[in-house]
């Protein structure tokens, strides 16, 4: 089989426009996901089952079902009901872009909440006790000590989640969005050169991942510089 990479050059502008769509999807859902995840994680830590119950169920549901199913439920499922189609939500829900953002945000916030919770609970008990001894209120303790501390601990695992989200965003192509994968498949439908175009798309995903990894290295170094040259010991699953 001969490979003909001239198709990659010919269709590069379209691949790049797909890349831009992928970046928008990932950035927006990561930011929204983090905003939803923080209160979820804090509520999840609570020892009061009335407060921790709902976040537990939320995280359990969105981590336990496939993202593809969640996307289909939001995009095709919701639109089956006339109530939804006539509601004020329809202008948003009829757009595949927003359906993808909703599904991705719900999904990534569940994972991110667990990552945040893990980070907060990984803070040595002694530091928490020290806060209490000084007489900090719970709010002061979280704002001054626990959340900044957790931020340093969370970075490696959180970077990992962003890369997973980047790859999961390929599922947006199933609801007509022309993200990098969707664009690649549309090009292939015309050129019948799956190997060349998918190789090119794969290379672009790899490049984005490299940028994400690099940014997280920088932030990690800065955030954890009080640890000296030794970097923080959190297993890197990447």
């Amino acid at each position, binding site marked *: 089989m001969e490979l003909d990479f001239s198709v990659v050059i010919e269709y590069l502008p379209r691949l790049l426009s797909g890349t831009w769509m992928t970046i928008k999807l990932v950035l927006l859902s990561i930011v929204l996901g983090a905003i939803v995840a923080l209160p979820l994680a804090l509520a999840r830590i609570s020892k009061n089952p009335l407060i921790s119950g709902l976040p537990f169920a939320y995280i359990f549901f969105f981590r336990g079902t496939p993202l593809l199913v969640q996307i289909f439920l939001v995009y095709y499922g919701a639109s089956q009901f006339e109530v939804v189609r006539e509601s004020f939500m329809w202008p948003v829900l009829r757009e595949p872009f927003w359906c993808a953002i909703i599904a991705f945000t719900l999904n990534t916030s569940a994972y991110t909440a667990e990552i945040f919770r893990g980070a907060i609970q990984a803070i040595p008990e002694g530091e928490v006790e020290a806060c209490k001894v000084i007489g900090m209120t719970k709010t002061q303790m979280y704002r001054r000590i626990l959340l900044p501390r957790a931020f340093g601990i969370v970075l490696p695992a959180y970077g990992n989640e962003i890369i997973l989200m980047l790859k999961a965003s390929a599922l947006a192509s199933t609801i007509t969005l022309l993200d990098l994968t969707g664009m690649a498949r*549309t090009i292939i439908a015309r050129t*019948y050169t799956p190997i060349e175009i998918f190789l090119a798309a794969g290379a672009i995903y790899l490049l984005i991942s490299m940028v994400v990894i690099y940014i997280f290295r920088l932030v990690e170094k800065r955030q954890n510089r009080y640890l000296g040259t030794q970097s923080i010991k959190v297993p890197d699953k990447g």
Partner: protein
Amino acid sequence: MTIKKLALSSAVILTAAATSFTANAADTIRIATEGAWAPFNYIDNNGEPQGFDVDIAWALCEQMEADCKVVTQDWDGLIPGLKVRKFDAIIASMSITEERLRQVDFTDKYYSGGLRYLAPKGKEFDLDSLEGKVIGAQRATLAAQYLEDNFMDTATLKFYDTQDSVYLDLVSGRLDIVLSDELPTYDWLKTSGNGDQFEFKGESFKKEDEIGIAVRKGDDLKEKFNQALEAIIDNGTYEQINAKYFPFSIY
């Protein structure tokens, strides 16, 4: 049993297994279809592929006295899969086009298609311009290609993995109008629960659209299929299968 005997007998078994395996692989014709294109090919409640294409496939195999296996594969993976020998033929209502002929060989046609617009009843369209409309079609089909060639810059085009998803979004109102093959849509209008709210718009076009069986370039399977096709058309088998799905001839 001594070690020697054991080794010998297992060697015999292995050779026998290997021979039967190669014999099988050579004789069985693996035919791929999509399984999401009723009534031409779809998956029934038992998970078996059914439909016009599948009936034709079995009729051809019987005619050729060949051992066949029908497998399903997503639409846009059919030609790539054929090229890398995942299967030996595609009987999936695939139109014979110039682009595809550069990749694969086609047999003679086994039916003829045509494209036609589908939209909600009571809405009027200027089918020549369709400016600003949201038009849907299945990805990697003649319809999608026609839309890309004609309305790429003036309308919003949406492409789906399966025709069923196209219908879903037409019903939900995300699509103004759909372009698809006339025959399966004819079936959808009649059989689906929402069919009564929709109708064809305009006449069908691209009637020269011929549907053939795709095989790898240079494969002599093409000739075998052509002979079998001629035979089942002559002996009335084709007509019987046709009548099962459409009250008119689709050849």
